């Protein structure tokens, strides 16, 4: 009976937290369509989440493509299908690895920073100061970040894919001796618009999920430095898990 009570309490607390998160998301998005719109703040967030993530996305993308090409080449050579390295690299990146790995990268670089920033604003009463000025913090803090994520995640994913494909090209063509024509022509033959659309849907979904979790955790952070640190860790862990779970769900829906 005691264990049942503990389980029940845990389930209720999880449901309460989920409901709280959902209300936070709906409430935040309700401000996305009500003027005044904060374009300057939006641009600042695009710069923070997007532009400043480009270097790490470039590095991650290029090495992912290089590793993929290397592994796929040696696997396909066993069955005499080296020509398929291009499509294998491109399809893996566009459908799966590009959206997932770029989202995980942005979570680590920008998501954690956003949680910490909002959390510090909460504990230093800056959010209360906004409310006291009759300015809604969701409109000023949260919505510009979420809108920026919706714009930036697909673009960074596209960058990741392109850089990854050229990373694969470098290894496959320049180092392992595949012909350049084969690498790209097979890719054009096998990659369809549908694959690109699936990748884009995924990156959009990951953008909303990551910013939702990171902003929520920061907005309702605990007390003091420990509270902010805990919120940041929870935000990164929860975002990463949600990225992988939703990747599977979206992937299975569009198969």
């Amino acid at each position, binding site marked *: 009976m005691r264990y049942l009570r503990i389980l029940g309490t845990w389930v209720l607390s999880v449901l309460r937290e989920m409901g709280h998160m959902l209300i936070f998301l709906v409430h935040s998005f309700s401000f996305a369509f009500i003027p005044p719109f904060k374009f300057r703040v939006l641009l600042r967030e695009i710069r923070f989440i997007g532009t400043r993530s480009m270097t790490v996305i470039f590095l991650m993308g290029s090495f992912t493509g290089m590793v993929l090409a290397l592994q796929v080449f040696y696997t396909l050579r066993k069955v005499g299908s080296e020509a398929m390295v291009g499509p294998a690299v491109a399809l893996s990146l566009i459908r799966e690895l590009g959206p997932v790995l770029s989202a995980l990268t942005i979570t680590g670089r920008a998501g954690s920073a956003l949680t910490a920033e909002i959390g510090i604003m909460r504990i230093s*009463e800056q959010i209360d*100061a906004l409310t006291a000025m009759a300015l809604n913090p969701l409109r000023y803090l949260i919505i510009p970040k979420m809108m920026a994520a919706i714009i930036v995640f697909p673009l960074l994913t596209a960058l990741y894919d392109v850089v990854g494909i050229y990373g694969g090209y470098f290894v496959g063509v320049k180092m392992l001796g595949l012909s350049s024509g084969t690498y790209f022509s097979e890719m054009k033959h096998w990659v369809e618009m549908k694959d690109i659309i699936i990748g884009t849907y995924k990156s959009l979904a990951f953008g909303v999920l990551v910013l939702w979790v990171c902003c929520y955790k920061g907005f309702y952070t605990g007390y003091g430095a420990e509270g902010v640190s805990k919120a940041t860790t929870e935000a990164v862990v929860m975002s990463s898990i949600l990225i992988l779970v939703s990747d599977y769900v979206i992937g299975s829906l569009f198969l």
Partner: protein
Amino acid sequence: MIEIVNLHKSFNGQKVLNGVNLSIPKGELIAIIGESGGGKSVLLKHLIGLLRPDKGSVVVDGEDITKLSRKELDLMREKFGVVFQGGALFDSFTIYENIAFPLREKTRLSEAEIHEKVEESLEDVGLKGIEEKYPAELSGGMKKRVALARALITEPKIVLFDEPTTGLDPIKLHAIHKLIVDTRRKYGFTGVMISHDIPEIYEVADRIAFLFEGMIEVAGTPEEIVHSEDRIVRQFITGSLSGPIKTDHSM
């Protein structure tokens, strides 16, 4: 006019406010004193609707703010200016942007008019020339003066001060108190100030209310508080370790 009626608030089952009753007439500056962690900031946050009470009401200019909708509450908040304990200045903004922020967001003033008002406000608090600095570059005392400038820039009718002098040396403390007196003379606001500064608070406040165990134990003029026969008040203002107020040392 602010009327606090039978205000109750608990956090996780712990009672913080236990039936606060207090009336603050228009134009008065009242200081709320009391033990650390005794609910003074919680009480202040109820006055502007940052916290909702479990029971009771806060009536400002005839309207019970605990019953207002979000929109109505925002309208009510425009009457207020708040000086938070640590200043609550926006880290990513310069001092100029911090002070200009309420004007840019809440008024239709031109940039030239905003510039003029910000400069005047910085002059009022004796901080001209720091416009381009960031909050992290300022001392605690300067941050509090900037916070005061930001709170007063929209010329609010009511200003709430949450420990505006905590952590300052005696000279800076007197400077902030003088600033509050001067700006009050200039703008004529009603003020509610949380403070621990005894006896310095006597020179600023018209009235002092002593919050003890979630209720207003005594409220009166500084003269009345100094000569109060209430044992709790006497112990608090003299800082004695023995008496009805339990301290970590005496427990």
